[in-house]
């Protein structure tokens, strides 16, 4: 255990190693580490931002959904109203149409009845004339009594 020249040689070796580390080892590694730290920090920030945006988007989508639901219920309400209107309208139209048909049918019936009555009257007049002709046979001149026959026919109306 004696101090000698080894001390100086070791001190020189020590300073060389320090110089080497200061110059060639520390800076590049530190650069790499710091760059990576920055990358990681950026990544984390981006993740945070993404999460925030996702939150906003989900909020927006729920808003949109709510609005859409409201719109849909409004539309359904309107449609129901419109449907009941249509039903009412068609009921009314159908009733009018029916009334009109009934009216037409009644007129037809009256007309039929009238023409049947007319035909029947004609027929009865003819039968009456034929009966009278049979009763009076020879005594009745068709020409002479034509006026009378006509008046009878008038009465039968």
């Amino acid at each position, binding site marked *: *255990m*004696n*101090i*000698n*020249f*080894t*001390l*100086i*040689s*070791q*001190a020189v*070796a*020590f*300073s060389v*190693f*320090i110089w*080497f*580390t*200061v110059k*060639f*080892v*520390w*800076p*590049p*590694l*530190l*650069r*790499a*580490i710091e*760059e*990576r730290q920055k*990358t990681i920090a950026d990544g984390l920030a981006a993740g945070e931002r993404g999460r925030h945006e996702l939150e906003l988007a989900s909020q927006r989508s729920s808003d949109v959904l709510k609005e859409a639901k409201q719109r849909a219920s409004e539309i359904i309400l309107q449609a129901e109203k419109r449907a009941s209107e249509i039903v009412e309208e068609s009921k009314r139209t159908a009733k009018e149409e029916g009334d009109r048909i009934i009216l037409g049918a009644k007129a037809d019936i009256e007309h039929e009845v009238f023409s049947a009555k007319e035909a029947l009257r004609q027929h009865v007049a003819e039968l009456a004339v034929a009966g009278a002709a049979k009763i009076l046979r020879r005594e009745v001149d068709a020409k002479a009594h034509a006026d009378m026959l006509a008046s009878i026919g008038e009465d039968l109306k």
Partner: protein
Amino acid sequence: MASDTELTPTSYINHHLTNLTTQVSEGSFWVLHVDTLVTSLILGVISFGFIWLVVRKATPGVPSKRQAFVELAVEFIDNEVKNTFHGNRHVFVAPTALTIFVWVLMMNAMDILPIDIMAWIYEHAFGLHNWRTVPTTDVNTTFALALSIWFLMLYFNVKVKGWGGWMHELFCTPFGKNPLLWVLNLLFNFIEYVSKPLSHSLRLFGNIYAGEIIFLLLGMWAATGVSGAIFGAILGAGWAIFHILIVTLQAFIFMMLTVVYISMAHESH
């Protein structure tokens, strides 16, 4: 192991604690412990070379396992420095702390290598009779580190506070500005400045040296017979496992003290 001399406990321990020396120049100071220097250089080159190879291909993207390992070490050191040093640590302090931690850790870790097997390898593979594996059991290494840091401390004191500021601090702290207290302050600071490198270096040296001595004692016990060999092996394994903690802890303490000393040089009281 010395096969030509008689094996006694003294010769065994002496053999393991003798450095391979070479005389650089005249005088008792100009002796170089070749084993200490070469081992520490090899360890430094291997560890910083490995780190440099990884760092050279460092990517800011997904790191490879090796890069992740190096980053783990670097971020661990960086965090420790950040908690102590409040300045731009990336310029000098943090890389210096990394250098110290890695290098001292590697040098300490040589203590875990089995001494007698290593001695046999040195003897038969390289023809080296004396070779101490652990550079931090050489007080020259720990003093070299501590004194370098001490000079750095002085340098930063002057650089940050200026000559005037530093002198002011030497004379006026910790007791006060009163001229009557100047001598006391100076004496106090002198003791502090002397004790810092001493405690800094001797703590590391003492812990690792004691660890090695205990390995040697266990090795000697193992030579006494079957029961000695069994207990020596069990206790040796236990001590080696415990030594993993000491090795790491001492490297960490040495690094932390360095950071603290340099931080104190940056901050005025």
